[in-house]
């Protein structure tokens, strides 16, 4: 850890959770007391040696971090950049999300609550939440859109195996955003004994800041690992952005390093010029969704529009408010990656490195292909890129198999 350089010059967000004009709390009054309690417990925990030691021990002994920073030589040769992969895919449960759920489960215990609820799209966060709930002996209820429970039956079984109750959500578009609505409704009704274990750096204050702080170890580690490996900082840091926790996790340590470019890649689906994408920043507009002001896919009346992405984990019509702010300030750049570009990068990593990435993470790999030539031209040399390989692709084998047409008929 390098606390001296990873602490930004000014604190963000402000004490009410505003990142510039974004963030804040757009919630029923009924939740304010619980959000205030969470904020107080979280703030106390972040300066409490005992909490920090417990969290660090869990991350090391249970989650298997720090994750490796791996120099992907064969992939690098294909894309014209030196690519260093932050191997969050090797964590327990297969993604960066385990860091967040362990932090929030520890807080749940500190608040004396016995029940956690979570929303999930593809099921990855649901599996992570169910994992932490099993470890901490908490009751766990996961809300999942009915459409997603059908698409991701294996993850439903996984959550049930871990002891969680999976509730299929049949309202609205029956996907992630509706699962989040239903989790909020549960929370309003059961806030006394229940913590809402949000899966990404979105929602009302303090969730965006808190989730970022629980996953910021990704960037703290990667920054030091890059210094150790190359003797310097990278030219750019790249990550995929859905809700945006893996990207904030790796960006945060680099925000004060103004010479390091930050790139977030949104799910461009079939193209941001079509109505089938999930690119809230590059294809949406400022609005209020799920408790915060941020970029949202919406119509002129402020009704949320359904998103589309081949990656269920990026298939969400909003984005964490800190990303909206990093975009407005110009500190990070956001670009869309289409389904097609992501799947080409997915295949390239499989074939050059023997690593099957999550389709989410493949969007960041496709981002490498987008920016490497332009950075090389700008710098006059091969750029050094740190890429967050935020999750592994086991869960995506069926989707990818169908996409590439490599499944036998009976599969």
């Amino acid at each position: 850890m390098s606390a001296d350089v990873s602490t930004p010059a000014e604190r963000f967000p402000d004490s009410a959770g505003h990142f510039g004009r974004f963030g804040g709390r757009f919630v029923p009054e009924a939740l304010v007391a619980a959000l205030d309690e969470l904020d107080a417990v979280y703030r106390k925990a972040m300066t409490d040696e005992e909490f920090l030691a417990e969290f660090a021990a869990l991350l090391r002994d249970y989650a298997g971090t720090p994750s490796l920073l791996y120099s992907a030589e064969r992939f690098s040769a294909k894309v014209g950049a030196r690519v260093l992969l932050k191997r969050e895919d090797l964590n327990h449960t297969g993604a960066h999300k385990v860091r967040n759920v362990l932090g929030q489960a520890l807080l749940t215990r500190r608040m004396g609550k016995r029940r956690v609820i979570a929303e999930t799209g593809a099921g990855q966060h649901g599996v992570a939440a169910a994992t932490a709930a099993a470890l901490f002996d908490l009751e766990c209820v996961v809300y999942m859109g009915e459409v997603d429970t059908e698409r991701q039956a294996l993850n439903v079984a996984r959550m049930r195996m871990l002891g969680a109750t999976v509730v299929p959500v049949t309202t609205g578009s029956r996907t992630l955003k509706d699962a989040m609505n239903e989790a909020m409704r549960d929370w309003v009704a059961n806030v006394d004994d229940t913590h809402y274990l949000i899966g990404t750096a979105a929602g009302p204050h303090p969730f965006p800041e808190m989730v970022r702080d629980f996953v910021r170890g990704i960037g703290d580690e990667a920054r030091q690992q890059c210094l150790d490996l190359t003797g310097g900082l990278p030219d750019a840091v790249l990550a995929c952005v859905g809700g945006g926790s893996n990207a904030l996790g790796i960006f945060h340590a680099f925000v004060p390093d103004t010479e390091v470019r930050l790139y977030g890649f949104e799910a461009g689906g079939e193209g941001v010029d079509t109505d089938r994408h999930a690119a809230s920043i590059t294809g949406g507009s400022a609005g209020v969704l799920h408790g915060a002001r941020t970029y949202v896919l919406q119509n002129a009346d402020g009704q949320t529009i359904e998103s589309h992405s081949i990656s269920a984990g990026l298939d969400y019509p909003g984005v964490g408010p800190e990303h909206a702010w990093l975009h407005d300030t110009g500190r990070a750049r956001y670009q869309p990656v289409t389904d097609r570009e992501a799947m080409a990068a997915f295949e390239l990593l499989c074939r050059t490195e023997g690593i099957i990435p999550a389709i989410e993470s493949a969007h960041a790999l496709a981002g490498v292909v987008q920016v490497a030539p332009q950075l090389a031209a700008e710098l006059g040399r091969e750029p050094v890129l740190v890429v967050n390989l935020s999750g592994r692709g086991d869960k995506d084998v069926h989707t990818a198999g169908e996409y590439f047409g490599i499944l036998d008929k009976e599969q």
Partner: protein
Amino acid sequence: MSRIGVAFDKARADGRAVLVGCMPAGFPTVEGSIAAMTAMVEAGVDVIEVEIPYSDPVMDGPVIQKASDIALAGGVRTADTLRIIEAVAATGAPVVTMTYWNPIEQYGVDAFARDLAAAGGTGLITPDLIPDEAGEWLAASDAHGLDRTFLVSPSSTDARLRMTVEHCRGFVYATAIMGVTGARSQTSDAAPVLVSRLREVTELPVGVGLGVGTGAQAATVAGYADGVIVGSALIRRLLEAPDLDAGLAALRTLSAELAEGVRNPTR
């Protein structure tokens, strides 16, 4: 004083509570919702609460969600809501608008306040806008003479109750239970406690909502509150009816039962 304030004063003088009836704009159609709200007024509902349908209504239970989905699928726009408000206000009943925040932000906060005032609306109930985030709405409602109803909850601290009522005008909305909208078989124990806590910090009329669906429940709530707010139970009459005429008849019957309830407070 606002028209809502006048309605509360008049009811108080008559020794009864105000009956507020809620209906989503454009449910089941634009014309159907005007007919429904007019029928409610004719059957004794004092104040009509027009809810702007929203794609992600996190404070609403299954009945209002379904009605909102039907309205949105029918293509209702924010501008239609203003037209509905104008038509219902013409009946003479005060009309208050209930809305999640994003539709207002996208319309333009000041523009919406201006157009709402012009349509004859009295103000806004804002379930996901707390005074902490309401700077633009405070200014726009002042500029256009509109009421502001923020919600308070059994979980609100005393400090937040005080802060919230300072920003309210017209009436305060006390949510009777920790939960979302929808009729329940029992009235809440938490609501009378919350109302008496509010009496310590404000002279404003207090409306109680969430979970009220029968004349008897309305009478109970009228025993300690100034207003009884009913939504899901009324909307269900339309949802479950075989056609609009049958729905309107059922709506009239329940409205009359509730109107009888608020006139016979259980003390």
